[in-house]
């Protein structure tokens, strides 16, 4: 029986699993450790693993040079703002696709998804020109708009999948009970879809937080987010590994914490349809 696997097999698999996990995690671990080293030690050969001289100077330098707080604030504004804006557009869209489908609904869903298959650089020039002419370059609201548009297909798809699980009878009951569309969505659909909406929200905050292509190309100083902040440290003026690591750590820490605290919700939401 497979369940009575010998002790050796169990130990073997455990070691293997840990090895793979550590291998995958090692770059992040390396970044974390390096952030606390001096610049000299960061490039020392042979490299040290734990810092010989533990220092927090890198974090101070990083804040002085590039204003971490401002970038972090921009990241929060853009990721949360674009997700909320996306939800406001996507909830009615997913409602209509799930509960009032037409012959073309499936095609529209596929078409929306297909936009995600296109490489972003493909539309770089037109978007850049539009942003320049509308004076949206290097603005937080411009970035929020583009981030909303980028993630909208995913938000709609996810919500559509969750909404499909909700029995249409219950929405019809609400209509019979005198609920107009707005009340039907606010009092019945949304509360019933809270787990799905929460997962969608979390995933999209994470995606928007980590998005680098558009945030780097469409911002310079004012509206830069944390991804732009990291990239500013890998500039050719000289590679400061320890500072780059400190910057990266500062940039990913909030989202890692968010992911860590919400992992139950994320997993539950992402497997919502599968388990039922």
């Amino acid at each position, binding site marked *: 029986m497979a369940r009575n696997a010998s002790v050796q097999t169990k130990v073997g698999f455990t070691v293997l699993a840990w090895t793979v996990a550590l291998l995958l995690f090692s770059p992040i671990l390396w970044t974390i450790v390096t952030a606390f080293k001096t610049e000299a030690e960061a490039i020392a050969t042979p490299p040290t693993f734990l810092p010989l001289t533990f220092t927090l100077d890198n974090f101070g330098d990083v804040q002085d040079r590039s204003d971490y707080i401002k970038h972090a604030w921009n990241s929060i504004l853009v990721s949360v703002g674009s997700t909320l804006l996306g939800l406001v557009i996507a909830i009615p869209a997913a409602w209509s696709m799930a509960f009032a489908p037409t012959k073309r609904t499936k095609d529209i869903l596929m078409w929306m998804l297909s936009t995600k298959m296109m490489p972003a650089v493909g539309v770089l020039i037109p978007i850049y020109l539009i942003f320049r002419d509308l004076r949206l370059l290097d603005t937080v609201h411009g970035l929020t708009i583009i981030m909303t548009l980028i993630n909208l297909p995913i938000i709609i798809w996810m919500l559509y999948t969750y909404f499909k699980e909700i*029995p249409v*009878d*219950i929405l*019809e*009951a*609400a*209509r*019979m*009970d*005198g*609920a*107009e569309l707005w*009340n039907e969505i606010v*009092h*019945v659909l949304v*509360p*019933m879809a809270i787990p799905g909406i929460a997962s969608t929200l979390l995933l999209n905050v994470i995606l928007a937080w980590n998005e680098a292509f558009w945030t780097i190309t469409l911002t310079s100083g004012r509206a830069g987010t944390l991804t732009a902040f990291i990239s500013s440290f890998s500039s050719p003026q000289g590679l400061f590994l320890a500072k780059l690591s400190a910057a990266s750590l500062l940039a990913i820490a909030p989202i890692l914490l968010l992911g860590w605290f919400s992992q139950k919700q994320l997993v539950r939401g992402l497997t919502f349809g599968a388990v039922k």
Partner: protein
Amino acid sequence: MGSITLEHVNKSFGEVEIIPDISLEIEDGEFVVFVGPSGCGKSTLLRLIAGLEDTTSGHIKLDGEDVTGAPPARRGLAMVFQSYALYPHMSVRDNIAFPLKMAKMPQAEIDKKVEYAARTLNLGSYLDRRPRALSGGQRQRVAIGRAIVREPKAFLFDEPLSNLDAALRVNMRLEITELHQQLKTTMIYVTHDQVEAMTMADRIVVLNAGNVEQFGSPLELYKRPANRFVAGFIGSPKMNFVDGPEAEKHNAHSIGVRPEHFTLSTTAGAGQWAGTVNVAEQLGSDTFLHVEVEGLGLMTVRTDGEQTFRHGDKVYLTPDANRIYRFDAAGLALQD
């Protein structure tokens, strides 16, 4: 008030015509049952009245006012669904209060009405539970409570009892009938159970393939079915039909005899038709005999439960001459 008028209502889903042309007049305070085989369009017709589906053509009027294009929320009707369709995220109290909240009623008045509905339906001790913590029968009561608090113009029921077990079904059937007597509000009730139809209805609409076969009181349908379909559908067990020479003796294309309209004898020759008992279903009060009649085929005969029958017993049947139903070639009932 709650009179409902359908004028030449037609409904198609894409190319498929589900309801070709229905006109009906339902009077205020009536209990009307839509009955018919599965897929005949009962639910569709009910949903058209509710406003959950749009008519393809034709008009629907409530109290004389044309509501054909009006959304369900504006029609002032209440519906009880087969699946109960309670709001799972709300307590029983909030479920019942929901339509009142939508009507923007003051909270004090809402509380009063919810308490009253809960008392009427014996829901008092469940008010703070979620629907998932209720049994099927309790859920159905909550669904009815949610429907009555708003004092709608009419109630629409779509097979509300079909998810309940047999005993509970009989109970709820009585409760709904009592509710109707108490409220005197128009009710339209969809079922494919003809016992429910016969026992609850003031008038029954028999539907078949999207057409009204007959609209009349239960006894009218039983005594004077308009055609073979209604004759076969109303009455339990089903009417027996005979074609051919035996029917021609009565100047008809086919004749029908209900199982309860036979005189049964075991004395040789003491009957018009001779047959052999195939299966005897003994219910105690009655016995249903499935008799293989020579030259005519299988017939169901109802007899009292006094005598026992066995497979292979010889019996002699005489149809009650005054209660033979006659039909023409198109299946329409022939008048005497």
